[in-house]
């Protein structure tokens, strides 16, 4: 780890000024990803600006019944918050499915969205990686890729985004707010992560030096009946090999509203809009759920060893939507 400067930000504008002056500086929140990446040499910042004490740690119900979540809210506080659990239970479940109790106590919402892939080629600086060092190649395409992307990847990078929280936020149309030295801005989470293409090192639409200040969830009555299911290679404390965030509103066995997003299948949380379109207005049956999943997964391009994810996601969609439909029927 190279030597670096450190300072605590007491206000947003001061924090922005540091990064404006020094492009090699980084914001640090909980540090659960950044410090790890600094230890492995993937990140070598010149200076850290600690934003954890900025007044961005509130969760508030918006006037229209949505939620505004500050960027420095910890994962634990997010998952424990009564309004999150009441209005967006899948979001609480997704956060609780991630990492460990210790890490959730440290990690922040802003940091969670900006965490880097856990692709083991990316985190090992002795190996080639287009995301880390553009132009060096992607050994995962031919190598160990059982947990790599089946959707939206390219030959340049097949890494997946590791966030659980982001999957639920994506399903519920979250909007990311940020500040830059030039002023504030916002981006729907759906557009926040850039397509992989031939620039896997460019990950988000965040302007250089921008600080995420919060995430806004628009009101979504459907989200009150929502669920997050995560499958991993042990029962806890592991990254997903496939996950689904789903919300379903069924009346008279007709799907009125549905939200569906997948995790661990792409370089970003994957909003399953094709599946949602296929379901909306149709019957809430296992066959319809499976057909909708197939519609979404038609675009899947599995590698040698990760084709199982197509089956896994399809089965998860059917299982989770069936459970929600059953609860709706009660």
């Amino acid at each position, binding site marked *: 780890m190279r030597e670096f400067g450190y300072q605590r930000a007491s206000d947003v504008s001061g924090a922005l000024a540091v990064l404006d002056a020094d492009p090699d500086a980084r914001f640090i929140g909980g540090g659960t990803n950044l*410090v*790890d990446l600094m230890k492995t040499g993937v990140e070598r910042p010149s200076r850290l600006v600690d934003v954890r004490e900025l007044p961005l740690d509130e969760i508030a119900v918006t006037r229209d019944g949505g939620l505004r979540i500050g960027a420095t809210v910890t994962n634990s506080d997010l998952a424990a918050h009564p309004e999150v659990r009441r209005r967006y239970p899948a979001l609480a479940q997704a956060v609780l499915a991630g990492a460990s109790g210790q890490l959730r*106590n440290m990690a922040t919402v802003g940091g969670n969205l900006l965490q880097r892939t856990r692709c083991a080629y990316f985190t090992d600086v002795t190996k080639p990686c287009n995301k880390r060092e553009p132009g060096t190649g992607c050994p995962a395409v031919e190598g160990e890729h059982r947990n790599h992307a089946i959707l939206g990847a390219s030959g340049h990078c097949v890494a997946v985004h590791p966030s659980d929280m982001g999957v639920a936020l994506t399903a519920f149309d979250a909007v990311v707010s940020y500040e830059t030295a030039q002023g504030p801005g916002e981006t729907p989470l759906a557009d926040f992560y850039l397509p992989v293409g031939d620039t896997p090192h460019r990950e988000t639409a965040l302007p250089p030096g921008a600080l995420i200040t919060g995430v806004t969830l628009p009101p979504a009555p459907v989200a009150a009946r929502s669920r997050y299911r995560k499958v991993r290679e042990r029962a806890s404390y592991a990254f997903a090999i496939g996950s689904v965030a789903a919300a379903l509103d069924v009346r008279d066995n007709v799907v009125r509203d549905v939200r569906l997003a997948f995790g661990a299948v792409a370089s970003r949380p994957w909003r399953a809009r094709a599946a949602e379109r296929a379901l909306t207005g149709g019957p809430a049956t296992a066959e319809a759920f499976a057909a909708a999943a197939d519609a979404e997964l038609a675009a899947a391009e599995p590698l040698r060893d990760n084709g199982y994810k197509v089956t896994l996601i399809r089965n998860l969609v059917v299982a989770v939507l069936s459970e929600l439909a059953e609860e709706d029927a009660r």
Partner: protein
Amino acid sequence: MASPTSSAITLTVNGDKHELTVDHRTTLLDALRERLDLTGSKKGCDQGQCGACTVLIDGRRAVSCLQLAVAAEGREITTIEGMADGEELHPVQQAFLDLDGFQCGYCTPGQICSAVGVIAEHAAGWPSAVTEDVRPEAGPPPLTPDEIRERMSGNLCRCGAYVSIAQAVARAAGAESEAVRETGEAA
């Protein structure tokens, strides 16, 4: 001496204030072990992947290997060395000892600190990934063996002492809630 890449800080550990100058690269774990001679917090992976370095920061469990020491200034840090009350072991420590909730002992301080955090998080009504219904209307989940196992999963134990660790956490959680009732203190 402080420099652009180091800082003079005060760390509050187990109620004691320690003044030291740290290289910004120094993690809280290394500051505890190498600078303050508090070697109870263990380094199993140094990457937040095992939980052996778990301490309490402002009463909440955290992995000290991913916490920069300089960023821990001003926060109350509790390590395994601060758990016992003099000769009197903390109920979690006593339960680990009595039920053989460890073998090699290397993950043990982290397991114990984590268990103290788990019991507090549960008392605060926090749900977990195995909580059937996370909605607040469902009420706080009972601390079943499955709840304990899920909540303790950030602490790996290679010897395989999990069964007695989970029993020890259950015992300590029961003992603590009884103690709270006896003294009339709020949880």
